[in-house]
């Protein structure tokens, strides 16, 4: 499971940094390294691009996992360079931004957009796997999630927009319910296709969601 990100456009990043001339860049050694959006290579390339644009890069680091508590140590180790910067440019996912926010009062500007929590099906192909809905249905849908794999998130079977097993919205994408049907058939559990699924509960926990583990 990984946090899947896409780099913002150079224009958007420039816009985000307007009025902030001294920049400290933070990448992440885990998810954004894997998606080539904020690993060491991308951080160095970003540094060079910002310098060409006339920015002063006071330093950079790639935190092994920017969403966990190693971030605090990385912030301390880079204290002087961060202190002399106007802001941090984050090339970790949004979770890294949230983590850094705990330790740094300066503006943290994201250079990437966090798209979804996904897995890598084949090299370079990332697919959203879980919407963290809090009411897991995978046991009744043959391990294929209709919330993430169906564009409409339909839990009571497909809409009318299937063509040759593909989704009418994206002809490259399999219809989630066709996949579910085929797997349920293999498992001899097609009776589940007729089960009424009540409306989803969007109040499993209050938004923003939180959980205290005792």
């Amino acid at each position, binding site marked *: 499971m990984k946090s899947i990100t896409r780099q913002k456009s150079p224009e958007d990043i420039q816009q985000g940094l307007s009025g902030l001339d001294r920049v400290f860049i933070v990448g992440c050694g885990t998810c954004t390294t894997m998606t080539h959006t904020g690993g060491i290579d991308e951080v160095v390339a970003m540094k060079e691009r910002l310098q060409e644009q006339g920015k002063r890069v006071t330093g950079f680091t790639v935190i092994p996992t920017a969403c966990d508590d190693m971030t605090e140590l990385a912030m301390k180790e880079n204290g002087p360079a961060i202190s002399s910067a106007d802001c941090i440019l984050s090339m970790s996912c949004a979770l890294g931004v949230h983590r850094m926010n705990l330790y740094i009062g300066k503006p943290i500007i994201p250079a990437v957009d966090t798209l979804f929590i996904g897995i890598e099906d084949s090299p370079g192909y990332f697919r959203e796997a879980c919407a963290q809905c809090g009411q897991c249905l995978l046991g009744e849908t043959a391990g294929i999630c209709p919330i993430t794999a169906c*564009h*409409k*998130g*339909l*839990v*009571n*079977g*497909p*809409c*009318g*927009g*299937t*063509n*040759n*097993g593909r989704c*009418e*919205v994206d002809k490259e994408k399999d*219809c989630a*319910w*066709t996949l579910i*049907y*085929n797997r349920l058939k293999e498992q001899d559990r*097609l009776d589940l*296709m*007729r089960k*009424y*699924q*009540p*409306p*989803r509960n*969007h109040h499993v926990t209050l938004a923003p969601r939180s959980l205290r583990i005792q």
Partner: protein
Amino acid sequence: MSLKSKLESGKFAITCEVGPLKGTDITEVEEAAALLKDKVDAANVTDQQSSVMRLGSLATSGILINKGLEPIYQMTCRDRNRIALQSDLLSAWVMGIRNVLALTGDLPALGDHPAAKPVYDLDSVTLLHAIGRLNAGFDIAGNELKGKPAFFAGAVVKVDSDTEASMELQIAKLERKVAAGAKFIQTQAVYSADSFGKFMKRVAKLKVPVLAGVIPLKSAGMARFMNKNVSGVLVPEELIEKMADAEDKTATGIQICADLIKKLKPLCQGVHIMAIGWEKKVPSIIQAAGL
């Protein structure tokens, strides 16, 4: 006679479609209503069809009532959560709307506001369940209503599928819809009485009236476009050639549609004519079909 009485008494019903336009000019809707009111039993009013923003189906259904044409209020789950859907149903009832057609709704990505947030808080099945709860005097949270509706709820199904899985999924979903309270069914456009007959055999056990959907062909190009782009629509090559060769395409399109209706009539309980801009030709189609 209302659509409900007609279908419940086993008489062959005719419905058609009225599509609201983008803007506040209701001239065309009013003209269509005046022309169709004595020709059809009811008219579907589409709900932001193809995810293109336009005048709403609730207000347009109200216009049809004022003009003496019974509406079938189409309701999709794309744009409203369960609070808004139930509230609009109550509003529809007090406006005199009696028929509701529950649909999932096309994705916003296909329409003219592709960046819109898709809702799908309910789906066509849970919406039918919600209509049933309102009819019973409760909302879906279990709260009692003061005054309750008695909607005649319908649903849709695709008759022709290109894969076995798709066919089975359509039937299974139709079963869920009937179990959730659908009392009549309108189908996606059919062009083959043979395949429609096979479909009717599959769903006979559900004991729910089915109105066969038909779309009159305007040209060979339109038929090819639908074959390529509209899921579940399969126009046979023979009809496409007939349209391509026709000198008077309008007359041929109407005749093909009328002939098809004649073949479908013994197999089902009604016909749903989706004229797509040809609303004014619906009376000619009905006449040519001998209805």
